[in-house]
């Protein structure tokens, strides 16, 4: 009987705990933020969280929206994996007071997550998701404030072979939606130069994310003697690849895609190896010329000591801002109304990353690209 009493007690506790937790009713407008707070991209996730909180604070300091209601950011961790991404989306969708969500970083996480938001008809705006396929599904509730891989691939094809006088190009990706997607558009953007014989793609293969030891793959790469090596994956692997590549004598120029190089990359690879690495990227926070950017960065720096080292957190802030803006303008928290307004009536609204507008499919209009390089001191600057 003693065991049964114990079990009964256990079950009662399990039963009552969730019942006891009440939902806070409040005078706030809740906007969800889904991001990789833990996991392989915790660095990006943390910055995105801080960005959104800074943006929300700026809004609240100016009096809030909808006649004085404060904006509250509700953060849900999706750990950078598709499965937990789906769970995080389910969680935000299930919370009735969340009006819309800023979600997420990582195209492969965004795929299932945005699927769920769409099924439950909730507005979600991606901030670190550049795979072209995401806006080709005919979704009504998905938008993104960041750019797309085809612009980046085109930029690479237009700029890189000329700049580095490169004839032999190696493209390496990591089999994720984003990495593979970017590699594919780069390859097709290079098509005209390949057919004319100006350029040859000598290596096109993938590494497995999460792996640590690339010596064998890199030895294979070395034997193809590339002039330029383009890696379209994420920064954790990029750092390992560069360190191991230099060890075994790969001397060629390393160009990373826009997820490959940030301060974490420089820290892991060490300044000695990181310097001289290039990157195709959207404008970094420090290089944004807009007034709203200066205001935001000043507030962020005041709160956290330094500005974000990658563009994605800024897109997250812009996503939050535009949601708040549209809620205020339409006076509504109804998802369909918001989605309609975002698609049709948001044109050139001043944002931190420039004027914000969305295409019919939900893409951000007009995102520029630059070539960045890691300089002698380990800082990432626009290359001349």
């Amino acid at each position, binding site marked *: 009987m003693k065991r049964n009493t114990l079990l009964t007690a256990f079950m009662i506790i399990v039963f009552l705990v*969730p019942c006891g937790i009440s939902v806070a009713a409040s005078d706030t407008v809740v906007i969800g933020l889904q991001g990789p707070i833990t996991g392989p991209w915790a660095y990006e996730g943390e910055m995105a969280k801080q960005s959104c909180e800074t943006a929300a604070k700026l809004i609240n300091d100016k009096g809030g929206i909808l006649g004085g209601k404060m904006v509250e950011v509700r953060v849900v961790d999706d750990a950078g994996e*598709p*499965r937990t991404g789906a769970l995080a989306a389910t969680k935000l969708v*299930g*919370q009735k007071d969340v009006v819309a969500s800023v979600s997420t970083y990582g195209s492969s996480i965004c*795929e299932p997550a945005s*699927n769920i938001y769409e099924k439950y008809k909730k507005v979600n705006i991606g901030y670190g998701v550049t795979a072209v396929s995401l806006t080709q599904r005919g979704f009504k509730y998905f938008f993104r404030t960041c750019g797309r891989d085809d612009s980046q691939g085109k930029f690479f094809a237009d700029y890189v072979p000329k700049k580095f006088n490169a004839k032999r190009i190696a493209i390496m990706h990591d*089999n994720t939606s984003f990495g593979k997607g970017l590699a594919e558009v780069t390859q097709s953007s290079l098509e005209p130069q390949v057919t004319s014989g100006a350029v040859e793609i000598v290596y096109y293969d993938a590494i497995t994310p999460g792996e640590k030891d690339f010596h064998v793959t890199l030895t294979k790469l070395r034997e193809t003697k590339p002039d330029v090596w383009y890696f379209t994956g994420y920064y954790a692997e990029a750092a390992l690849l560069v360190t191991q590549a230099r060890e075994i004598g790969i001397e060629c120029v390393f160009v990373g895609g826009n997820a490959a190089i940030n301060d974490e990359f420089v820290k892991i690879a060490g300044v000695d190896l990181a310097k001289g690495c290039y990157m195709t990227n959207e404008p970094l926070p420090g290089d944004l010329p807009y007034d709203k950017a200066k205001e935001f960065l000043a507030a962020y720096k005041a709160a956290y000591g330094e500005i974000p080292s990658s563009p994605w957190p800024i897109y997250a802030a812009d996503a939050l801002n535009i949601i708040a803006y549209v809620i205020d303008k339409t006076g509504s928290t109804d998802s369909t109304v918001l989605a309609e307004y975002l698609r049709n009536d948001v044109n050139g609204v001043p944002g931190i990353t420039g004027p914000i507008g969305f295409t019919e499919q939900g893409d951000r209009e007009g995102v520029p690209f630059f070539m960045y390089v890691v300089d002698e001191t380990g800082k990432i600057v626009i290359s001349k």
Partner: protein
Amino acid sequence: MDGETGTKPGRFMDAKKGFLAAVVVAFIVYPFLVSNYYIDIAFFFGIYALLGLSLNIVLGEVGLFDLGHAGFYAIGAYTTAILNTKFGIPVLLLLPVSACAAALFAYIVCSPIIHLRGDYLLIVTIGMAEIIRLGLINNPFGLTGGPNGVYGIDFPAIGNLLVIDSSVEFYFFIWIVVVLSILGLIRLQHSRIGRAWNYIREDELAAGASGIDVRGYKLLAFVLGAALAGVAGNIYVAKLMVVSPESFTFWESCLMFCIVLIGGMGSIPGVIIGAGFISLFPEIFRPFAMYRMLIFGGVMIAMMIFRPGGAWPRKRGTAGLVSRSVITEDIHD
């Protein structure tokens, strides 16, 4: 003394029946009292219960060391995902199909290795599960979507009449399946097959000498265990609408192993409790943030020190947990 289905009359039986009734009522009423998030947690509790029951057949009843059960779970899940997204076959119809796919896989793959002893079987099961998982990640023939997995799976439905698409409906779906499985497994326990399984667990050589087809019964256990895991895979995928290789790691197999051990090998109520522990514990201790997994690990160790037989040990048979002389222990690996 047969303690399962109660041949003992009197007050004890009434108390037990009452307890059971209370549990059933609590389960039925629960989803109407809490928010979607907590219903989902209870859903995953159900999935783990089903997985625990499936591993219990192999590990609990027959005593075979299986640390690769997540592989069968994955086969069931991906069968459903691929056949549904590529060919539009309804999810509900795919439930028996996934079970069969997993069972067939188990049959083919386990036949050559079923004779391995103890730890060698263990490493082979681990290897099998890893091969499956890595195969899924590498996206052969473009079927499995690689590390991103497959997404866009439909809700289970029978035409427009019965559509399971809300948290509450999924909750009842999984638990009805669990209850049906429990009923089936209890019947098995009391049958010839169940007795043969337990005999093999207790003393394989003697069982063989008594005329039991040891190899056949072992294979049967794997096949049934795989089938049930395949069912769990189907329901899991229907709920999540997306499947990725991340859900089927070696760690998942370890969790299932723990469910059976912590609950009590061969004990059905034990397995349910074990599943509850594994799935609910991290949730309940969420407020402890970073420390909750520390506590989880500590509790696991404590459970084994203080209740090595499990939370609700199987009453019949010793289930290999009583200390035996070292000589037989070494050889009975």
